[in-house]
């Protein structure tokens, strides 16, 4: 009897995470959907005119900025992360990997406000002095995000590379391929799905990051013209205006949250599907 009760209680607890997820989705959609219908889905998603106190709610410039910042972070971060992953999984002796992998993972533990701060103090002046523009820019946000997502991509990629069966490598080396040829043509091919999962999770992290981006991106409300122009992402829009928003304005910020939520879910679901396929292989 008591055993049954315990089992039922534990089952309820097991649903806590998924319950929280659903509750969260319900609440954010309930707060945000009415305003999207009020201004019209098309208008909301495709207008660049955001003047919430005057009744204009268009988030397209933020969607574009968020995507550009994320793509920029990928262009800078993915090669670095893959280089680290290949080195640590293939070239470095086991002893070194055991120390260096957690060291890189430590980068993930540094608070995002500290990254943002270092961006403002060190990176922004560099960009302003050497490349021009206001310094606070899409480029600055991309560089900071690239560093922030490095540990995620590196650590999952290392696991993916290490999961490739040793016999593949032996087979390739036995056929006379060099170590680098083996890595490039055999190991990376076999670890492909794992690496793609790592990259997608990195993208999800980049598009969702808030505090660091607010501090370095400049937060200007228009479509980005160049990598040096200041931009406002979906996340920064929410964080910047939540403090004083009320009524329709607050609802519009929740609606911004819905757009972000949809992006994140798409990333997560595709990462999940790819991982499943990878496990089956």
């Amino acid at each position, binding site marked *: 009897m008591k*055993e049954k009760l*315990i*089992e039922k*209680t*534990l089952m309820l*607890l*097991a*649903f*806590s*995470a*998924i319950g929280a997820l659903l*509750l*969260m989705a319900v*609440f*954010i959609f309930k707060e945000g959907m009415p305003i999207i219908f009020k201004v019209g889905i098309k208008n909301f998603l495709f207008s660049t005119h955001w003047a919430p106190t005057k009744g204009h709610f268009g988030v397209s410039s933020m969607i574009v900025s968020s995507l550009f910042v994320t793509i920029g972070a990928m262009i800078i971060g993915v*090669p*670095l992360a893959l*280089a*680290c992953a*290949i080195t*640590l999984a293939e*070239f470095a002796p086991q002893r070194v990997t055991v120390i*260096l992998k*957690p*060291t*890189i993972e*430590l*980068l993930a*533990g*540094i*608070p*995002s*406000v*500290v990254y*943002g*701060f*270092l961006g403002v103090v*060190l990176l922004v002046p560099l960009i302003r002095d050497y490349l021009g523009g206001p310094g606070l820019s899409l480029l600055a946000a991309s560089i900071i995000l690239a*560093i922030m997502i*490095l540990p995620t991509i*590196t650590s999952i990629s290392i696991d993916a590379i290490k999961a490739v069966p040793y016999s593949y490598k032996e087979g390739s080396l036995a056929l006379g391929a060099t170590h*680098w040829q083996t890595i490039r043509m055999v190991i990376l091919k076999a670890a492909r799905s794992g690496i793609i999962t790592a990259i997608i*999770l990195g993208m*999800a*992290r980049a598009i*969702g*990051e*808030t505090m660091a981006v*607010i*501090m370095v991106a400049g937060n200007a409300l228009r479509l980005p013209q160049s990598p040096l122009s200041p931009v406002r992402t979906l996340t920064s829009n929410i*964080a910047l205006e*939540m403090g004083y928003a009320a009524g329709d304005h607050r609802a519009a910020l*929740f609606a911004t*949250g819905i757009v*972000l*939520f949809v992006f*994140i879910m798409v*990333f*997560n679901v595709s990462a*999940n599907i790819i991982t499943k396929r990878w496990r089956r292989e």
Partner: protein
Amino acid sequence: MLQRIVKAQLWSLTGFTIGILFFIIFFISIKGLPQITLEFLTSNPVDMGRSGGIFSTIVCTLYLIFVSLMIAMPLGVGAAIYLTEYTRESRLTHIIRFGTECLAGIPSIIMGLFGFAFFVMALGLGWSILSGGMTMSIMLLPTIIRTTEESIKAVPYELREVSFSLGVTRWQTVTKVVLPSALPGIVTGIVLGIARCIEETAVIIFTVGSSLRLPESFFDSGRTMAVHFYILAREGISMPNAYGTAAILILSILFINLSAYYLARQFLKKIC
């Protein structure tokens, strides 16, 4: 030849990445450590943080950690026990795992929005450590579930068989045999949760607020160290105090992560 060039390039990129980490730690430490005195740690901020210390923000951070863990620990460990000891892999567990993974990917700003709409407004808890703790506990759940699950799975099956063959019930086996052996792994998850509470900012501004007063109960608003640092730095209130706070943030997180790593290694050694 090509092999050598590639290898050298890859190594230098790796070196560069690790260099960034050390640079961040050294830069913040050199600028921040001189600010840290006993007085800085034990006196409250004066004049919005222009002078004085960070005592009230340390207290607020500790309260927040306490509340978050008090909620997340039983939920997370319970969920992990159910997933590993009470069910086989089925459609149901797949759904639960998928939900947990999705929750782990939700950005903190969305957590903050939700915490604000649900705990602060709908439940009427206001900006308080309780609202923040409950929101943070949702954020910590996936980590705690995952680390607990992994450490429970690592407990050898023979231990359970012996226990069952002695006529012990499943729950007794879990509490007396499985959990004690899995403890270091579970503690690792909790330690990582503490680090998460210290470094989080977006969620906390929306749910705990940014009051500088020393919180007297869990129903009070407050300001954690990370939020304090953000406000000091962003509004340019006091750079020396900002660096001091940043140094404490980074060093405590470094210490926490290293101890989590150490615990995990000890656990692996014991199991293997």
